[in-house]
C-alpha cells in the first residue's frame, strides 16, 4: 500500500500521457489501484515497485483504448512502451520536486489562477475556457503553457534553495 501511494503520482501521469481526458483518466486510475491491490500477492518485493505498477497501468490503458476508440490522436503501442520506460527511469525524481507546487500556485496572479481553476478544477478544455473568458483557444493554451513554465521555474528555484540550505 505504501509502495502504491508513492508510485501513484507517476502512474497517474503516465496514464494521462495517453488518455488526456481527466475523468476518463480518473476511472482508469481507480481500476488500476484496485488491480494493484488485488494482484499485490504477485508482486516480487525484491524488485522495484514502479515498473510493476506501470506494467499494470499499461495493460489497463490498452484495454481502455480498445474499448474507447474516440481518442483522436493516440500514441502507438511502441511509443507507449518508450514512454513507460521514460516514466520508469526518470519520473520519481521529478515527482518528488512537485511538493512545491501548491506554494508556487499561490504566487500566480488572479487571472492565472482563474485559468488554472477553469482548466484543472473545472475540467474545461481550452476552447471552453476561451468562450468564458473571451479569448481564443490557442491564446488560452499558450497562457497555460506560460503558467506551467512559471510554475516549473518556481519549483526549480525552490529545489535549489532547499539543496543550498
Amino acid at each position, binding site marked *: 500500500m505504501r509502495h502504491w501511494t508513492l508510485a501513484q*503520482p507517476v502512474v497517474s501521469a503516465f496514464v494521462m*500521457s495517453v488518455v488526456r481526458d481527466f475523468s476518463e483518466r480518473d476511472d482508469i486510475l481507480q481500476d488500476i489501484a484496485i488491480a494493484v491491490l488485488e494482484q499485490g500477492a504477485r508482486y516480487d518485493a525484491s524488485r522495484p515497485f514502479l515498473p510493476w505498477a506501470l506494467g499494470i497501468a499499461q495493460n489497463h490503458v490498452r484495454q481502455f483504448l480498445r474499448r474507447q476508440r474516440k481518442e483522436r490522436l493516440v500514441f502507438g503501442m511502441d511509443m507507449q512502451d518508450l514512454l513507460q520506460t521514460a516514466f520508469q527511469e526518470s519520473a520519481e525524481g521529478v515527482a518528488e520536486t512537485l511538493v512545491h507546487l501548491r506554494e508556487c500556485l499561490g504566487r500566480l496572479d488572479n487571472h492565472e489562477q482563474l485559468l488554472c481553476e477553469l482548466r484543472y*478544477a473545472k475540467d474545461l478544455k481550452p476552447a471552453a475556457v476561451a468562450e468564458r473568458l473571451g479569448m481564443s483557444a490557442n491564446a488560452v*493554451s499558450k497562457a497555460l503553457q506560460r503558467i506551467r513554465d512559471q510554475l516549473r521555474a518556481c519549483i526549480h528555484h525552490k529545489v535549489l534553495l532547499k539543496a543550498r540550505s
Partner: protein
Amino acid sequence: MDRELQSLIAGYLDDLLTAEQFSELESRLRESPGNRQQFVTEMLLHDRLRATMMAEELVSSILIPPATESPGVVGRSRWLRARRLTGAVLSLLVMGIAAFVILWNGFIDTSVSAAATELTRLIAANATETARTYQIAVEDIALKSGKKRRQIPDEKSARPPKPPLDNAVLHVRGAEQFVLIHTLADGQKLLTGCDGRLSWSIRPDGPVRTSRDLTRFSHDLPGHEHSMTFLKIDETLQQLQRGYEIRVLPDDNDRDDLTAEGADNAERLLIAMRRRKMPGPERVEIVYDVGTGEIRQIRLVAMPYGPDRLTIRMTLQERTDFGVSFFEHAQHHGADRTVIEE
C-alpha cells in the same frame, strides 16, 4: 528546454494538435531520451496541477455554501476566495477546528487511487449485516432548481411533500428489515417499515397498510431514489465505487491494515463526489472507525428527496439487535387498528 517541443506538448495536452503536428510530436519523442524526459516532466506537472486544483475545489465547495456562489461571474478566482475564506475561518476558530484542519491538510495530498483501495477495504469490512439504529438530521433543503435555499431552523413550516426526515429514527436489520419513524410537526409519529415478508405503513390516522411488495413503503428511506439506502452497506459502498470520485482523509500512508492495533477509536472521513451524469446525492461523506471499518456517520449532500434536494446526516446511535419481531407492523400499533393488505 526545447521550446518547439514544449509547444507541441502543450498542444497535445490541450487537444489542439493537428494530425501533422501530432506526428511531429511523436517523431520528436522517438528522437531522443532527452525529449521523452521533457515530455514526462510536463505530464507530471500537468497531472499534479489537476490533482492539486481538484483538492482546492473540493475544499472550497465544502467551505463555501452554494448560496453564496455567483456561478456566472468569472472576474475573480474562486480558488483565491476559498483560500482567503479558509484563512479567515481558521483564524476565528483556532483550537476548535485544529483537528479539522489537520484532516484537510492530509486530505489535499490524498491520492484518488489510494482512496479507492480504502473504499474496497471498507466494503469488505461492512459485508456482514448487522442491526443498527440511526438518528437522522436534515441540515438543509434546497429546491430542485438549486437557486433558492432555506435552512431548516428558519422556516420550520416549509416541509418537503414527503414526510419530514428531520429527527427521524431508522432501525435497520439485514438487507430488508427496517423501521423508519418520522416525527410529524404535531408530534405524532408516522412509521414505515419492512419485516422481510411484508412492507407496511402506519399513519397516525387511518388503517395500517401492508404489502407483499417489499419496496412498497420504502420510498421515504434516505437515498431510496437511487437505491442508496445504506440498508445493505456494502452494496451501497459498491455503488459509490462505481459512480463517485473517492477521497479519504486524513491520508497518513499508514492504512495497510484496517484492523491494525493502535487505531482504536480513530476515525477517518471518506468523501465521495458524484461523477458527472451519475444519479444520486451530490456528495456522500462517511465517517468510519479506522480499526473496525464501522460506519459511524453518513452525510448525504444534495440528496434527491421528492422535488427537493436534502442534505441529511445519519448518525449511528446503537447496534442493538431488537430481533425480527421488532420489524413487524403489529409491534408498532394497537391491536384495534384496521390492517389493510394492498
